[in-house]
């Protein structure tokens, strides 16, 4: 066959599935929403949503995309938070360096978890990741109190950004947009990641781990890299959290933080790209409002979550995509 025919054939196929196209549009829609979010809800809530949504996306990189259950993500968020705060508190560096340190912190913890547990399956990996995160919590609380201030939190001075232009991060609006831009860039980076050769390899692992190993992919190394990326983005969220809170707090390392991100992600849809983001928005919005009416937030959340698992395991966005997929099927050949 001649070369020209080949090129035409290559051009003719549509490699991207309708799901990819839809997620792409959803991503831009959510980011557009982000621009007006601080005017729809309170600015602190909007900032929290952005930070935790990034965290949830980072978490889902491991859960939904690589198929590894992690119950220790609080470790990445928390260490990122402390790393970012400590370089500012002890080293007097600026915000950008702080965020870099936060990412490094998250990636470092991820590397440790990966070295100990990357080859272990589901439940085992979940337990080890949880244990390591909890260990970090106790370390920050007591033995390392000298550096972390333990329960009193490591408080930061008012922060500002000087490059590329000046931002006063004590101002809620400026803080929000600073966080928003960074989160948006991170989201776009994750999109690139998932559509890269590495991202496609992840999909192959999810679809048929045995086969893709037989094709020559080094599964262990790919999973390890995935853990690192997850820790990196989580660390970034942690760094932003420290800036937002003006402090690094031990509660960030507590296992409940891991539990919450799991719930937010599953609420949105773990088998999608934007699901975790959407789930976080809904979760935090609900928590903010329901907490005003009742002390029993945990009871409601627990009950709702159990119902969710039974009735809509694919989550909000996941179920929407599922329904769209079902409606498309009659028209497909």
């Amino acid at each position, binding site marked *: *066959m001649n070369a020209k025919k*080949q*090129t035409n*054939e*290559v051009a003719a*196929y*549509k*490699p*991207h*599935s309708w799901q990819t196209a839809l997620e792409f549009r959803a991503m831009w829609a959510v980011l557009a929403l982000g621009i007006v979010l601080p005017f729809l809800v309170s600015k602190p809530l909007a900032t929290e949503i952005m930070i935790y949504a990034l965290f949830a996306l980072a978490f889902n990189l491991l859960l939904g995309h690589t198929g590894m259950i992690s119950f220790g993500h609080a470790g990445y968020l928390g260490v990122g938070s402390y790393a970012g705060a400590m370089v500012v508190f002890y080293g007097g560096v600026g915000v950008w360096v702080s965020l870099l340190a936060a990412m490094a912190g998250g990636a470092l913890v991820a590397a440790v978890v990966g070295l100990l547990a990357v080859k272990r399956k589901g439940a085992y990996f979940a337990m080890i990741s949880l244990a390591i995160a909890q260990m970090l919590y106790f370390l920050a609380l007591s033995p390392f109190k000298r550096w972390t201030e333990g329960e009193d939190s490591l408080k930061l001075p008012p922060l500002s950004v000087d490059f590329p232009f000046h931002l006063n991060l004590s101002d809620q609006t400026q803080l929000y947009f600073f966080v928003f831009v960074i989160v948006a860039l991170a989201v776009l980076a994750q999109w*690139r*990641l998932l*559509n*890269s*050769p*590495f*991202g*496609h*390899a992840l*999909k*192959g692992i999810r*679809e*048929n781990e*045995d*086969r*893709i*190993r*037989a*094709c*020559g*992919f*080094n*599964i262990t*190394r*790919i999973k390890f*890299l995935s853990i690192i*990326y997850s820790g990196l983005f989580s660390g970034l969220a942690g760094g932003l959290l420290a800036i937002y809170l003006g402090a690094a707090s031990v509660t960030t390392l507590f296992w409940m933080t891991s539990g919450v991100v799991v719930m937010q992600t599953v609420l949105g849809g773990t088998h999608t790209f934007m699901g975790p983001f959407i789930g976080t928005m809904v979760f935090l919005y609900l928590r903010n409002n329901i907490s005003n009416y009742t002390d029993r937030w945990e009871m409601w959340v627990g009950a709702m979550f159990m119902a969710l698992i039974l009735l809509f395991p694919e989550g909000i966005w996941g179920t929407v995509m599922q329904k769209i997929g079902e409606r498309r099927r009659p028209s497909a050949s």
Partner: protein
Amino acid sequence: MLLQTNGVCKYFGGLKAVDQVDFSIEQGKLKSIIGPNGAGKTTFFNLVSGLYKPTHGQVTFQGKDVSHASMNERSQLGITKTYQITSIFPRLSVFENVRLSAQSRVSMFNSWRKAYSYSAMNNRTMEILEHVGLADQQGRTASELSHGEKRYLEIGIALATEPTILLLDEPTAGMSPAETVEATHLIRKLSNELKLTIILIEHDISVVMGISDEVMVLHEGKKLAEDTPEKISANETVQNVYLGKGAEPCSR
């Protein structure tokens, strides 16, 4: 010799699944392994593909000892196998099934470039789909293919890894007689056109005798005979053990 095994054994506790088998195959040849159920064909296969490591003996490929190399390492060296029970990527498109396999030779870790931007890889994928006759189905979800088509996809995925030696595990399993004839032709065609070295496990004697350069017969883990198809079908011991007494020698 492209690949050979020397006294290779695989024992599972007391069970000698493969016992002292010497095997060799030259570049470009098509060699089949036959034998009754439980003869150790699949175990032997897995010793070559890397799923099992030998209890004793060696597997040598291109002069190198690969006995303890892992499956993905052997795949990268050029030893690729297909599966007896179809193992594809069900929810991905036919195109992506093969492309993903081809990607194993290009990049596993690049986290920035768009996966579909490697035009050479895309072209190669379409070439392979042409070879196995699935080019017009490239957009379909793999799980929607017919059984026979899935077996072809299975071969396509294997081809995409640019194998030096291809291990086909009962490629015609579950196919209708007509499909089996087609598949047989395809395998021989691949061997000739792509100069592939192929090792084949088959139950269907007609497939084997029709296309093989050489045949090895296994029985209870041991090698019974290794020769051209004609000589094998005329071999009385083989006839007794496998074909049954009084069977007619098969003709090409």
